[in-house]
C-alpha cells in the first residue's frame, strides 16, 4: 500500500469497514511508515477534539417558553 492510498482509507479503517485483506495491507503499511502513523494519529486527535467542543444552549427565553408550554399542555 502507498501513502496516498492509506490516507483515503483512514475513516473506513476506524469504522472497521475495511475488508480483511485491505485491513492487513493498511496495518502493514502503518507499521513501516512513520508519516502515515502520524497521519492516523492526527485523525484521531481531530475526532477527539471535535467530540470535546463545548455545547451551545437554548436561550433562557426559549427554555422558559418550552417549560411553560409543557406545563400547560392539556393532558387527559
Amino acid at each position, binding site marked *: 500500500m502507498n*501513502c496516498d492510498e492509506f490516507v483515503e482509507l483512514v475513516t473506513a479503517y476506524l*469504522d472497521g469497514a475495511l475488508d480483511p485483506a485491505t485491513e492487513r495491507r493498511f496495518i502493514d503499511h502503518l507499521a513501516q511508515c512513520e508519516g*502515515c502513523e502520524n497521519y492516523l494519529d492526527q485523525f484521531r486527535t481531530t475526532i477527539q477534539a471535535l467530540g470535546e*467542543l463545548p455545547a451551545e444552549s*437554548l436561550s433562557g427565553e426559549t427554555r422558559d417558553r418550552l417549560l411553560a408550554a409543557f406545563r400547560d399542555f392539556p393532558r387527559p
Partner: protein
Amino acid sequence: MDSRTVLSPLPPDDVLTVRLAAGDEEAFRLVLDRWSPGMLRLARDFVSTRASAEEVVQETWMAVFRGIARFEGRSSLKTWVYRILVRTAKARGVKEQRTIPMSGSLPEAESDAGPTVDPSRFRGPDDPYPGHWRPGQAPAPWNAPEDRALVSEVRRVIGDALAALPARYRVVLSLRDIEGYGSDEVCELLGITAGNQRVLLHRARAQVRRRLEEYFGAAEGAADDEL
C-alpha cells in the same frame, strides 16, 4: 455520547416516556437541558441562522410532547426526537431555500471523489517510491496544547474549519464526531447509504485535520524561530 461532560445518566427510555406523557416537568427539564445543545447544532446545519435553528428546536420539542403518546420505542427516544428535528429543520430549510443535497448532483458527486490530501505531497509516478510522502511532506506529530488559552485557540480553529465545510459534510461530521452517533444511525437519520456517509465523513475530517495541521505547523515554526 455525552463524553464532554460527566452527567448523571438519564432514566431509561420507557420510564422517561411514561413520565413525559404524564406531564412530569422534571423529566421534561432533564431531556430539554440534555439534548437541546446537540439539537441546536444539528438544526444549524439545515437552516441559515442561529435564531432559525432555535425555532426549529422549539418546534421539535412541541411536536415531541404532543406526540409522545405515539412513541412506540422502536428506536431510542433520543433518535426519535432527532428524527423529528431533522424533518422539521429540513422543511424549514426548504422554505429558506437552503436544502442540502446529500447524495449530490453530478458536480457534487465529482467533488466528493478527488484526493483529500494535496497530491503534490506525494512522490510522482517516476519516483522509486511512487505515492509515498515526499521528503519534508510527511505528517509530523502534533504537540497537544496543555494550557487553556491554547485549547480555546484550537477550538477556534476547529470552529472556523467547520464553518468552511460544505453543509453535507458538516451535518455528517456533527452527527458522527460531535454528537457521537454511530454510522447506522446517521445513515438512517439522513437517508444516505453507508458508503456515501463514509465518504462525506472522511472528506469532512480530512479538511478539519488540514486546518489543524496548518495551525500546529505554524505554531511549531514559531517555536523553532525562538530557538
